[in-house]
């Protein structure tokens, strides 16, 4: 097989800080290679470095060679690079919403990719553009070509970007988390298109992601990056079933939400990813590695003959050492009621009955009525005391709206909501005092859920202020300890903490008023895999310790499965299915649930088939 891309000693620097260090890889024609890493691993910079699209202030050294292209790409002139980009080498980026020019029609943007490289006339290019849009399975391609990007959904925009990338039949396609920003069902479709697109052209694929299951579904070989270095490489099967490098091991264990230790907790990697430029000298992983010794203060050599497989570690695991922890299907202890009526009889702590919520958008045209958004169309939900209920849905399902209504932040258009037997809907703020004392929220984005101008102790004490707690300082200390933070944290500001720590502070704030109900809105979605496991363990512990009722909202069924005994599936503003998590996961009944469960890439499925059957579109 001919080699399409060879990368040798690629390093990316920002001034004196090294962000990518001595990266090497090669990809052959038709191969699909995955590049795995968490944030801070340098994976995106690697891709940008290969394409010569590094942002200002960053510089690359090393060699990048694309077959049939002279000269080598690092240090080539802008013109030479521009010639290669979009023709022999193409890229799909992560954010579909901002990837297209908002003032240019979609078809024109695709056609431009063709005419830039002079292949066809304008008219032919336009025709080819429509064909390409059809190939990425966009409905009514001719009409869609005349649309503007803002008229398309995220998934549709990403397909357009893919069409642009594949327009000139590149020899190499690089994808950087192309489906991460999309819903699960759409994600599966996009991944499918990527794979079929490269297969049809016998192109090479470099697929960058943090999601192990996705990489296993899409790729044959995988490279693992950490701290800007390549730490392991090999076939998907080898690396993901018998990883040698301690980081890969930790990552694999932490990603698998069915893998727990004796106490039922998820496997985690201790500590957190250091900020850029603060990785330890020598082996980049050594400050978090259980096997680190003094030897690791020098950079470990690569074990393999070439960069296709091998690892960089002085103390690797054996090829047949099993991964830690049993794989236990989650079987919660609590007695589960199978239908809603039972729970209600038991005394629901949260009760949502036939709730509708519609929003009026401002008028956009003269005639006709202003558009109306039906966020919730008759939602019913009951949560019993001490239950852990997961609410699963994609974007637009109404799950976030539901949370806001239950938390008393908005009023339903119709229907009743009550918490702990008291009405929440139709009440004004002064009557909601009981709600503020008993129900607290943990939010998704650790960056924006803490006021950057307030010290941690003021942030955590905020719910106590309104409830006139007698000894807030003491309570703050208590909860900070409960979430595993040193009480010196109280004097600091949010920006001095990492994402995972901020999420802990968020949780501490929610616990401060000693609520009975904890509602969490995608609290781990924005976190890296290793952090996710830590925070999930923490939530689990806290819910147990304080006997909380947990309502956990997520788009990720696997996370919900780990934490909750009952799950409610929401789609387009209504509950489509609800029941014990295991059953829903194993034998979903409603077609939407089936679609959802089927679309989630899981490591097990992917590895089992290796060429996992494509999810039905």
């Amino acid at each position, binding site marked *: 097989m001919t080699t399409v891309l060879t990368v040798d000693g690629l390093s990316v620097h920002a001034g004196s800080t090294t962000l990518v260090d001595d990266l090497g890889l090669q990809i052959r024609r038709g191969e699909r290679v995955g590049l795995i890493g968490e944030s801070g691993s340098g994976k995106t910079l690697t891709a940008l470095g290969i394409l010569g699209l590094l942002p200002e202030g960053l510089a690359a050294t090393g060699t990048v060679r694309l077959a049939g292209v002279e000269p080598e790409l690092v240090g080539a002139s802008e013109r030479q690079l*521009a010639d290669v*980009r979009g023709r022999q080498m193409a890229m799909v980026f992560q954010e579909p919403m901002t*990837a297209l020019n908002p003032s240019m029609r979609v078809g024109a943007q695709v056609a431009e*990719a063709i005419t830039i490289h002079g292949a066809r006339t304008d008219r032919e290019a336009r025709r080819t553009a429509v064909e390409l849009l059809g190939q990425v399975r966009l409905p009514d391609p001719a009409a869609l070509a005349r649309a503007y990007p803002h008229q398309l959904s995220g998934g549709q925009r990403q397909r357009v970007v893919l069409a642009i990338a594949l327009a000139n039949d590149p020899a190499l396609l690089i994808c950087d988390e192309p489906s991460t920003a999309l819903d699960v069902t759409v994600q599966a479709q996009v991944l499918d298109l990527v794979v079929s697109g490269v297969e049809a052209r016998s192109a090479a694929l470099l697929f960058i992601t943090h999601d192990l299951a996705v990489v296993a579904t899409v790729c044959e070989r995988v490279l693992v990056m950490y701290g800007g270095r390549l730490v392991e490489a090999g076939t998907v099967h080898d690396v993901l079933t018998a990883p040698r490098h301690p980081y890969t091991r930790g990552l694999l264990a932490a990603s698998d939400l069915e893998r727990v230790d004796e106490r039922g907790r998820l496997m985690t990697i201790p500590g957190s990813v250091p900020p850029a430029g603060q990785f330890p000298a020598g082996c980049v992983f050594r400050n978090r590695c259980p096997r680190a010794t003094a030897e690791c203060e020098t950079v470990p050599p690569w074990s393999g003959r070439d960069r296709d497989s091998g690892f960089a570690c002085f103390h690797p695991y054996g090829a047949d050492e099993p991964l830690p922890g049993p794989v236990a299907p989650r079987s919660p202890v609590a007695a589960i009621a199978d239908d809603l009526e039972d729970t209600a009889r038991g005394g629901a702590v949260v009760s949502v009955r036939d709730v509708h919520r519609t929003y009026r958008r*401002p008028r956009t045209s*003269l005639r006709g009525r202003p558009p109306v958004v039906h966020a919730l169309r008759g939602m019913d939900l009951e949560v019993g005391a001490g239950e852990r209920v997961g609410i699963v849905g994609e974007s637009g399902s109404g799950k976030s709206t539901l949370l806001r209504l239950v938390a008393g932040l908005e009023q339903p258009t119709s229907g009743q909501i009550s918490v702990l037997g008291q009405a929440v809907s139709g009440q004004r703020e002064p009557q909601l005092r009981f709600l503020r004392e008993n129900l607290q929220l943990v939010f998704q984005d650790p960056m924006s859920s803490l006021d950057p101008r307030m010290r941690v102790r003021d942030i955590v004490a905020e719910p106590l202020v309104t409830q006139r707690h007698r000894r807030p300082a003491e309570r703050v200390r208590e909860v900070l300890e409960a979430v595993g933070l040193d009480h010196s944290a109280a004097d600091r500001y949010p920006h001095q903490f990492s994402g995972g720590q901020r999420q802990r502070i968020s949780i501490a704030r929610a616990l401060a008023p000693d609520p009975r109900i904890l509602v969490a809105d995608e609290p781990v979605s924005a976190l890296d895999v290793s952090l996710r496991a830590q925070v999930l363990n923490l939530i689990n512990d806290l819910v147990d310790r304080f006997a909380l009722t947990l309502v956990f909202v997520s788009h990720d069924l696997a996370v919900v499965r780990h934490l909750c005994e009952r799950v409610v599936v929401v789609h387009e503003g209504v509950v489509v299915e609800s029941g014990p998590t295991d059953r829903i996961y194993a034998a979903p009944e409603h077609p939407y649930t089936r679609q959802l469960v089927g679309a989630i890439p899981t490591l097990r499925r992917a590895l089992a088939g290796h060429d996992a059957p494509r999810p039905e579109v």
Partner: protein
Amino acid sequence: MLLRVLVRAGVLAASLAVSSVVVFGFLAALPGDPARVALGVNATEESVAALRTEFGLDRSLGDQYVDWVGGMITGDPGRSYVSKAEIGPQLADRMQVTLWLVASATLIAVIIALPAGTLMAVRHGRRSGLLLAGLSQLGVAVPAFLAGILLITLFAVRLRWLPSGGWTPPVEDPAMFLRQLTLPALALGVVQGAVLSRYVRSAVIDVLREDYLRTARAKGLTSLRALWRHGLRNAMVPVVTVLGLQLATLLIGAVVVERVFVVPGLGKLLLDAVANRDLLLVQAVVMVLVVAVLVVNFVVDLLYAVLDPRLRHG
């Protein structure tokens, strides 16, 4: 789209109405009697009363307002109490002059700002960019009238290349007209150009950071071509806003520059009217200036929808 136009037109109408009330009400609040003020301290009672009747100042404020607005709309703002001359023709005359000044200054500003701003953005952080940025900061710090005085000192007094002021209508003597227009237009235009260039710079920097530029480069466009084809159109939106908003400043700058160069435009008319306590004239000129700004802003607003398709479909 149609809805947008109608709403904006409605806002314009309301703004015009409110401004007219403000302008009228303001000057009606003047303590004292405009007729007496106009005739001076030695006026007799009869002449004051006669003047009042002649100009309808004995009617209620409401009536006077309606008359005045009606006059403004139909293009006949009446006669000044002080000079007894028709205000209308004076306005028309002076407006032309100011228009020439403002138009040429805008042209100069745009010619300077677009390339300078783009260059500053593309080369920001590098020496040429910093140099230009420094120059633009300097340009912003110099008020137009100071620039005018400095230009006069250099080109009129020292070098004697250009006249230090005055005005000749273009039809009479085009060469002289241009010579007299140059320095005032430069004074206004260069300063505005410096201000505008900073906005252009900012808009282009924003665009350079957009993801779709990266997509364009990934397609195979060099960064310059990517900027030209994809960036500039989107960068123009904030720049057009600024141009519109700057009109008010430009008009006021013209008022001052007209004083420096003794150019008989609206500005000079206004200042003279204030000095002469010719309130009706002041009212009329202020209203004209305000109307001009509001109308231009309305047009700019509509221009957005042309430039940004997202606004067309809501």
